[in-house]
């Protein structure tokens, strides 16, 4: 049992998962992840490097991955915006790596020290063109540790940049936790023959290990070489990944539920907000209101199937978020009108209190009972 801070948990989770490379640029509220890494990595022979900005931090991470490292960076809103081009590059080049974004109030410099959840859609759609995104989040110090470690694992499995979203409160919050053991994912070491294809559904072979890959952000096929058919090949590989993720949906969708059984109003929440939501649900249940909680740790690929299961059972889903309304859109799209979906947004740098969420949830049911349910 240790008292550790959210950012520290991220660093420890990464190290436990085999992370041996960190490149970054300081920014509140993610800085302590970097500072931890600066302390830990040299003593393990891993690389810590402070880059000149976030563009280069993300680039260095990708370069390092191709040098064989398990690499990560961490940032916050403004830096996350600057990393978007390279997140797309990592996706296109199937580079396993991890990017942590601790969300603070935005847009722009915004509220640098206050929590927000304003990058939920950016994490999915923030880079130009189209890519498949895998995005995790956490609502406790322990899950910050676990999800960071899991991100490294997913990065290996799918050869993609994995994004972990935190927020200013979780980053700086301390909780006492027992950190679970984590075994770093084993990276297969194929001996590439002449017919070896370095991309697509093939194992990752870094430079210097006997195979001279061609890595490019241009559309390319499994050989890595860009050619006129690159567009079709690139789309084919992306769709294959999409399919694979769909097949693996139940394995990669991390979530916890609370009091879902018989719930007529379900709070669908994530990250720090889910903690207030949990207290709200307990409050409501204690007052006899049939409320339940779905706390998502996997935001993307968005678990439509989970929402559909809930929409089939509940009258209403409340989606409280520290933004102007983001994740509510895929929820609405998934529910397809089968139950009422209500956004609850705030973007002033404050957390929702349990009471606020409880009130909003209760009023949804009240309206329903009063017959004023607006589909």
């Amino acid at each position, binding site marked *: 049992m240790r008292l550790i801070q959210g950012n520290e948990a991220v660093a420890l989770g990464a190290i436990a998962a085999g992370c041996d490379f960190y490149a970054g640029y300081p920014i509140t509220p993610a800085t302590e992840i970097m500072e931890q890494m600066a302390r830990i990595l040299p003593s393990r022979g891993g690389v810590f490097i402070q880059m000149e900005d976030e563009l280069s931090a993300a680039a260095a991470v990708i370069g390092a991955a191709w040098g064989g490292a398990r690499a990560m960076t961490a940032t916050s809103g403004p830096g996350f915006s600057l990393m978007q081009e390279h997140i797309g590059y990592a996706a296109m080049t199937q580079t396993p790596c991890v990017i942590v974004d601790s969300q603070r109030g935005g847009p722009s410099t915004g509220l640098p*020290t206050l929590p927000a959840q304003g990058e939920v859609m950016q994490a999915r759609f923030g880079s130009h063109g189209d890519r498949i995104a895998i995005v995790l989040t956490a609502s406790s110090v322990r899950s910050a540790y676990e999800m960071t470690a899991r991100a490294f694992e997913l990065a290996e499995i799918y050869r993609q940049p994995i994004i972990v979203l935190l927020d200013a409160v979780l980053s700086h*919050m301390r909780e*006492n936790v027992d950190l679970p053991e984590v075994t770093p994912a084993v990276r297969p070491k194929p001996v590439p023959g002449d017919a070896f294809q370095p991309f697509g559904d093939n194992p990752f072979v870094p430079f210097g290990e006997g195979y001279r890959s061609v890595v490019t952000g241009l559309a390319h096929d499994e050989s890595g070489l860009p050619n006129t058919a690159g567009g079709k090949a690139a789309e084919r590989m992306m769709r294959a990944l999409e399919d694979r993720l769909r097949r693996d949906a139940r394995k990669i969708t991390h979530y916890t539920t609370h009091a879902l059984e018989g719930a007529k109003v379900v709070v669908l929440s994530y990250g720090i907000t889910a903690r207030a939501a*949990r*207290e709200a649900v307990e409050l409501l249940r204690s007052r006899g209101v049939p409320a339940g909680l779905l706390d998502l740790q996997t935001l993307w690929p968005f678990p439509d199937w989970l929402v559909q299961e809930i929409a089939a059972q509940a009258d209403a889903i409340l989606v409280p978020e520290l933004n102007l309304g983001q994740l509510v859109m895929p929820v609405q799209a998934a529910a397809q009108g089968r139950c009422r979906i209500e956004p609850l947004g705030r973007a002033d740098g404050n*957390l929702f*209190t*349990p009471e606020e969420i409880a009130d909003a949830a209760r009023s949804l049911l009240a309206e329903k009972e009063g017959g004023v349910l607006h589909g």
Partner: protein
Amino acid sequence: MRSDPLRIRLSGRGGQGIILAGTMLAEAAMQDGLYVVQTQSYGPEARLGASKSEVVVASKEIAFPEVLVPDLVLCFSREAYLKFGKQVSPGGVVLLEESILKDIPDAQGQFLPLRRTARELGKELVLNVVGLGALVAITQAVSRESLRSALRHRVKPEFLDLNVDALEAGFRLGESVPSRA
């Protein structure tokens, strides 16, 4: 524990060691076998004006991490009192550094000569530890033994003696208060 969950707020100026105090309190609570969450205000305000550190202690898992209405408040400075010291749960305790009274004659709470005590120990920097000792003596938020051990854990060796003295002085200060809750 006075209540479960118990919500504690420490507040003061930047540089007064509020966050470290919160962390030590949280660590002590952990050693007492409790669940604990510590949060803090952060940023430029943490340097200037009033900053705070909050600790929630409970016997079961804690969901909402922040303190909306505290059960215990400790204020080291005038600004901290004005911003954070005026709200407390029914039956809650507000502990104030005595000099606040000079600036705000109608301030409400228990006044203690925390700064004076720290100065007498030779370094005003240990104000936070004196305060922590007093708070714990008055409220039994955590056990003294756990707090001592948390102190040993978080304080640099070269400053340990000074801090231990400060803690004990704080305990004594707290004990001296009649309206011990």
